[in-house]
């Protein structure tokens, strides 16, 4: 007895059904009908979605958590911010000494008179990076008349600047 006949009537019917299906398929092929899956719209949609996500995706930077511990002493003094000194440069464009130019580092404002310099020093006090009494550093050119230097000093004193120093070389 062959193994093909060992299945009984159920298997026989299954084989017959498969044979019929093969015959039907063959008949459709013979009649010219071709079954094919149209992939073009699916690919179009796939690429459209791909382009959409590529264009609209934004990458957020990774965020980290930095552990910090508060000081144990609640009354510990906070770290003081560095105070920027105000550097006042005094130059004398003409040798007669009548004219002088006052410039202040990191500021576009150029006072024309010593009164304006005093007003500037009053205005700048309390700005971020400056104390209420910022140190003023006078930086005169070597040929500047001492008179102008003293007037700058007076302007700083008039503006209630407690620390006025002369710059070194």
């Amino acid at each position: 007895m062959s193994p093909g006949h060992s299945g009984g009537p159920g298997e026989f019917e299954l084989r017959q059904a498969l044979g019929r299906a093969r015959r039907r398929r063959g008949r459709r092929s013979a009649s010219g009908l071709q079954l094919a899956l149209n992939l073009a719209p699916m690919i179009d949609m796939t690429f459209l979605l791909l382009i959409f996500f590529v264009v609209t995706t934004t990458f957020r930077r990774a965020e980290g958590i930095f552990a910090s511990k508060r000081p144990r002493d609640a009354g510990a003094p906070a770290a003081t911010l560095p105070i920027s000194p105000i550097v006042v440069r005094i130059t004398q464009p003409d040798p007669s000494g009548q004219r002088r130019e006052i410039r202040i580092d990191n500021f576009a404002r150029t006072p024309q008179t010593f009164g304006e310099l005093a007003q500037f020093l009053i205005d700048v006090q309390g700005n971020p990076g400056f104390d209420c009494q910022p140190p003023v550093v006078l930086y005169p050119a070597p040929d500047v008349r001492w008179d102008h230097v003293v007037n700058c000093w007076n302007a700083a004193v008039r503006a209630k600047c407690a620390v006025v120093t002369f710059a070194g070389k």
Partner: protein
Amino acid sequence: MVINCLLAAPWSPTGSGAAYSIGPLRAGSLEEMSDRLAAAKAATPNLQVVVRADRRLPYSAVRKVMEVVARNQIEVMNVVAHAREGAAP
């Protein structure tokens, strides 16, 4: 202690030269002034210095005196100026 910085030639409009004196005593040179300041500092540790300079002098002439004062480790240095309100605009 008062250090005077004077114009060596007052008739010169530019005031090219400077003469120095400690009080009424004239200092021949900056080195001599430094020696006197060192002696005064040794005698009086908390010595205070007042610098009186002619307004026509250039800053470099006064600067030299300041350097001498700093070299002798004199911490308090005052500058004399006219207390005239509105002297310069």
